């Protein structure tokens, strides 16, 4: 209920800052680079208030509040970091970690997979003092080739459930039971393949613990080289999803969606997420080929192949005229390829005998 006399500002750690109507304390804190921890937050999803790590102190409130679900109101005085908050956060993290078998998972598991272990280190929360029963039951029997379902590492943050519903609109992942017995599952507790899952991998990429993991990327976890990320664009449909190519040495080991990709904003589909390893398939052409005198295609050097191609194309042009050569550009290759294919016929032959694959 802001009026003109009541400016839309709060005091954040002693600093007066403005906010937009409807903004949460967590969003304001993030915008002002306060490093408020969270495990259940994904900025593409509705706030959930599940993990309680994002608690802040609100002047006048008896207890700390979850900043992700608290909307800012004019005049609020908010503290994001002090010894009490840090103690609360450490205890929460110790308890969360105590339910899990592993707290360290390979970074190839998924985009957000290091969030939990990073926070455990930051809050010195690897004490093990609450160690006891583990929650969640893994599904090693789900034989799908893409998504690891290791619920021993699940912390019930519901990010997978929410991303599947809110971001994908697929509702393939659901929740069974309550409290300590909470189990992330699919409809009727079956395999992903039998659910409405499309294997887009969004759940894998938002999981903060590696409970859901990228099976294809994890094949390379024992490869010693460090993981490098290279920003590029998916090679499949025309949506143009930005991706980060994960590589180790000379090998592509996985794909992650670019969370800030302008066309996809963190989303991918099964092709973009998992159909990348054609690049290292043994069928890839590694040398040019030329047809020999016996009519067989045989490997050749670049010099030989370029000479033979030039001679063959020129022979047609010389015998039948420049309109006897036709070029077809690719809708799959980069702009530079298409541009040069058209320049090839226009600058080379003075014709417009060029097309691409858009008519079929």
């Amino acid at each position: 209920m802001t009026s003109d006399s009541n400016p839309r500002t709060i005091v954040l750690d002693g600093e007066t800052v403005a906010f937009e109507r409807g903004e949460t304390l967590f969003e304001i804190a993030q915008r002002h680079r306060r490093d408020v921890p969270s495990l259940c937050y994904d900025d593409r999803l509705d706030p959930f208030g599940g993990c309680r790590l994002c608690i802040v102190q609100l002047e006048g409130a008896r207890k700390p509040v979850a900043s992700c679900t608290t909307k800012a109101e004019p005049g609020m005085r908010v503290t994001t970091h002090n010894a009490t908050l840090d103690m609360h956060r450490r205890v929460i993290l110790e308890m969360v970690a105590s339910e899990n078998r592993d707290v360290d998972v390979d970074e190839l598991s998924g985009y957000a997979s290091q969030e939990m272990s990073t926070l455990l280190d930051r809050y010195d929360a690897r004490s093990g003092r609450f160690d006891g029963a583990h929650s969640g039951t893994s599904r090693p029997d789900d034989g799908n080739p893409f998504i690891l379902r290791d619920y021993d590492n699940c912390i019930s943050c519901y990010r997978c459930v929410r991303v599947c519903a809110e971001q994908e609109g697929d509702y393939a992942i659901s929740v069974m039971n309550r409290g300590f017995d909470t189990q992330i599952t699919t409809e009727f507790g079956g395999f992903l393949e039998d659910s409405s899952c499309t294997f887009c991998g969004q759940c894998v990429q938002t999981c903060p613990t590696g409970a859901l993991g990228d099976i294809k990327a994890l094949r390379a976890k024992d490869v010693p080289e460090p993981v490098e990320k290279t920003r590029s664009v998916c090679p499949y449909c025309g949506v143009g999803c930005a991706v980060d190519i994960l590589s180790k040495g000379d090998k592509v080991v996985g794909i992650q969606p670019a969370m800030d990709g302008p066309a996809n904003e963190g989303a991918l589909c099964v092709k973009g997420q998992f159909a990348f390893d054609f690049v290292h398939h043994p069928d890839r052409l590694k040398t040019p080929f030329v047809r020999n005198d016996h009519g067989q295609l045989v490997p050749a050097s670049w010099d030989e192949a370029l000479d033979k191609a030039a001679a063959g194309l020129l022979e047609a042009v010389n015998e039948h005229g420049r309109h006897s050569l036709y070029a077809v550009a690719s809708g799959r290759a980069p702009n530079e390829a298409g541009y040069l294919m058209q320049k090839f016929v226009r600058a080379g032959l003075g014709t417009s005998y060029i097309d691409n694959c858009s008519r079929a």
Partner: protein
Amino acid sequence: MSNPLRDMEKPDVIFCIGTNMTECHPVAATRLKKAIANGARMIVADPRVIGLVEHADMHLQLRVGSDSALLLAMAHVIQRAGLIDPGFIAERTTEAEAFLEHVKEFTPEWASEICRVEPALIEEAAILYGTADRGAIYYTLGITEHICGVDNVQSLCNLALMTGNVGREGTGINPMRGQNNIQGAGDVGAIPNNYCGFQPVTDPAIQAKFEKAYGREIDREKGITKVRALDEAGKSIRAMFIDGENTVVTDPDREHCEHALKSLDFLVVCDLFMTETAELADVVFPATGFTETDGTQTNTERRVQRLRRAVPPPGEAKADWWIISRLAQRMGFHGFDYTDASEVFNELCRLSTTYAGLDWDRVEFGEYQWPVPEEGHPGTPRLHEDGFINGRGVFKLIRYRDPAETIDDDYPVWLTTGRRLESYHSRTQTGRSQGIDYLLPEEVLEVHPDDVTAWGLADGGWAEMASRRGAVTIRVKATERSPRGTVFSSFSFNDVPVNILTGAGYDPVTDTAELKVCPVTVRPASKSGGVAAD
């Protein structure tokens, strides 16, 4: 697309026609699902019960190839119900009077005879779209791969123009482009009628500009389309240079296509794999692909983004730009002494009108959508906001035409072809990626369960499907995704080369093949391909 992808979350009425978006553009479909979660209503027009139908308020399950009749009747209802936008029509369009008169004869009852959609449903859909504040149209090849593809697109334009659903947030006429860079292939001028930036080859001033840039005289006539070139193969066309297209598998009428390529004196193919097309070549060049190539590509919303090399290519594979320019140099062509992809892209931008304000550095983060007419211009996420490029939007008087072939006693079943989520085109890439086979191991023919029974087929058994051009053997899947009398399959699997069957006709304007309609017979068969004995 006239509007940006992020606008897909903004319409209050969505009209999807001929687009199987949840399978072919899954990430774009997630945005429509969000719009629907926020209260948008959706009309889906498609012969099949595609994934989008689950999310739709209305499904217009029209007969394949009858789109223009449906769209004429929708225009009729919008006109009759007074749902036109007179202000928009007066300010922004021309030929409206003739159009509004023209549609009077095309009643929903008339269309119903052709489309097999209830008149009341056509009426309801038209009123829903006609009353939208922000009505957005999305379409794909289900509209364009017909002999009347241009008519269909113009019919959609008519609907948007008469209701003023253009040039605003959450509206527009939005084709979802199929391949990662099919938009770019047209943008850069790899088409017979235009130079880069859609500058017509027939315009003398443009001719002069490019003759100067390329240092030679260039034809003042358009070239021919690939469809015509394949028809002329072995006749006036004697040699071809094909970059990254598996023509044999993805083009219609495979036998004709294979014969065409074989009758050339000389064929050069550039690809990642020894495709069915490359196997016919005299020289095959190994190209670099995704993860190995620096370059740019342009998406369906006209956004130019950078591709980056992460790993070295296999063996001696080279980037397409290198291969094409080195071949050009050996043929004695001038102007091909490039040393990297950025030089090529910067030359393209200098000569283009739509990319004129871009260069290699400016597309670093992919924030520009063309047209970007000059340096400093912010790009154009939404087209037609202040006016149409050619002045006014022109209404076109469309009449329904039958497909090139229609069903008869010999070929009584409609086949329509398309794509599936897990496969991409001829599977040269998805077919070589681990795990994809787990989800989609083979091609199937989707047949309505009642037709499975009526035609003596068995769910999971084999069928021989034949058209006037050939026959394939394919496994049968009983599913209510297909309506009675219409079957569906993709063309992705080489062991079920469905494009042997297709190719009855082409759009007279664009030469786009009628891949979406093909009358066939479907009979029980044994796996070896023989027709089963009774």
